[in-house]
């Protein structure tokens, strides 16, 4: 089976890049990882993603694919005979998975990030409350999608597991920053247990950034205002 020439432009710290890497691992696709230097954008990145100029960019036989969730779907479709399916097989289940993946990006992630950018205690408290409310939605989504199985996608990790699970490194970092538990074993027990299973998955484990290293990087990305 010929996979073609595969490159991925990205960064070790990026949630969105991790999604693409997990998907490539799931399909056992070898690829060249082109690590971007923080603070600059390579010529290849600017040429491959002129519209958004963002990572990740998957380059398959010199053809670029952009946007992490679109890349994951592409990987599933281009290498459909490799490994297991990433998207569910039924159209309705696919629509549900896509709905929640969009929710993760449009609503949940925005709330999580606003904890890091909050100015003052009031703003931080409000941001935390929002994350907790939205995480609660995701707990319900997990119960609905998993149908008693270990992952959103069922027996094996899939599209929605990848979409949300890739945030687990940053989830821990934001917890530390906020000094507040954001993935609570008692409030969202299904998600809590799912998170441990996801992080231990062999296609995920080598990619999850180490918390201390990520926290250090977060301090660079989200500097605290000087007192």
């Amino acid at each position, binding site marked *: 089976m010929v996979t073609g020439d595969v490159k991925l432009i990205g960064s070790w710290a990026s949630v969105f890049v991790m999604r693409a890497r997990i998907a490539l691992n799931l399909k056992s696709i070898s690829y060249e990882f082109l690590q971007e230097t923080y603070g600059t954008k390579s010529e290849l990145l600017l040429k491959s993603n002129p*519209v958004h100029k963002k990572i990740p960019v998957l380059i398959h036989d010199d*053809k670029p694919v952009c946007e992490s969730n*679109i890349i994951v779907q592409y990987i599933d479709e281009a290498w459909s005979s490799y490994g297991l399916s990433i998207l569910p097989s039924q*159209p*309705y289940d*696919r*629509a549900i998975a896509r*709905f929640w993946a*969009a929710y993760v990006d449009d609503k949940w992630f925005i709330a999580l990030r606003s904890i890091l950018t909050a100015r003052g205690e009031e703003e931080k408290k409000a941001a935390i409350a929002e994350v907790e409310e939205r995480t609660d939605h995701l707990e319900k989504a997990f119960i609905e999608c998993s149908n008693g199985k270990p992952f959103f996608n069922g027996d094996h990790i899939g599209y929605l597991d990848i979409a949300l699970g890739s945030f687990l490194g940053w989830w821990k970092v934001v917890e530390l920053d906020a000094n507040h538990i954001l993935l609570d074993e008692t409030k969202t027990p299904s998600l809590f247990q799912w998170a441990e299973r996801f992080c231990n998955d062999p296609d995920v484990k080598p990619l999850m950034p180490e918390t201390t290293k990520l926290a250090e990087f977060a301090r660079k990305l989200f500097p605290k205002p000087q007192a």
Partner: protein
Amino acid sequence: MAKEVILLDFWPSMYGMRTRIALREKGVDFEYRDENLREKSPLLLQMNPVHKKIPVLIHNGKPVCESAIQVQYIDEVWPHKNPILPSDPYQRAQARFWVDFIDKKMYEAQRKVYATKGEEQETGKKEFIEILKTLESELGDKPYFGGDDFGYVDIGLIGFYTWFPGYEKFGNFSIEAECPKLIAWAKRCMQRESVAKSLPDPEKVVEFMAMLRKKFGVE
């Protein structure tokens, strides 16, 4: 016999238009229900508890939310007639990219064009024209975004065309002067029955936008 497919929608919604067009492309019989957004129906709140927004597609009692997701669902459930997404994975990724681009960029920019004034409106107009020019450049000399056949990106964008006269009136500029190829593309799409049947009268949309402007205190 109760309809197998119900669409909860709001007539001027460019997002609802996507789903209407997709259903008509496939020849799917559906019941259209116009929502009063100031008094949302219990069915809407029950079927989209997370966002409480239209459009909501209800198929055999099960809801699908988010217009781009609905269009993909429709294409997958009724695959045989008028395919909407291309069959090649790379082309599919490109189509998804451009609908995602429209979803990320269009709403805020077009809102500034008609629902703000002064400097904010001028900034909005610049952004909006830039977005349209990017799309026009992607279209190039092709009849449709996907090439020879009407498809996903065309469906993703065409609904905004009914709002163009309103943008031009309230923004005081000509979209055709800036993006002639895009206007030619839109007129081509309007020739399709599924599109003509799914889009409202632009004059009514202008009236609706005028009402919104009053509501936002811009008029």
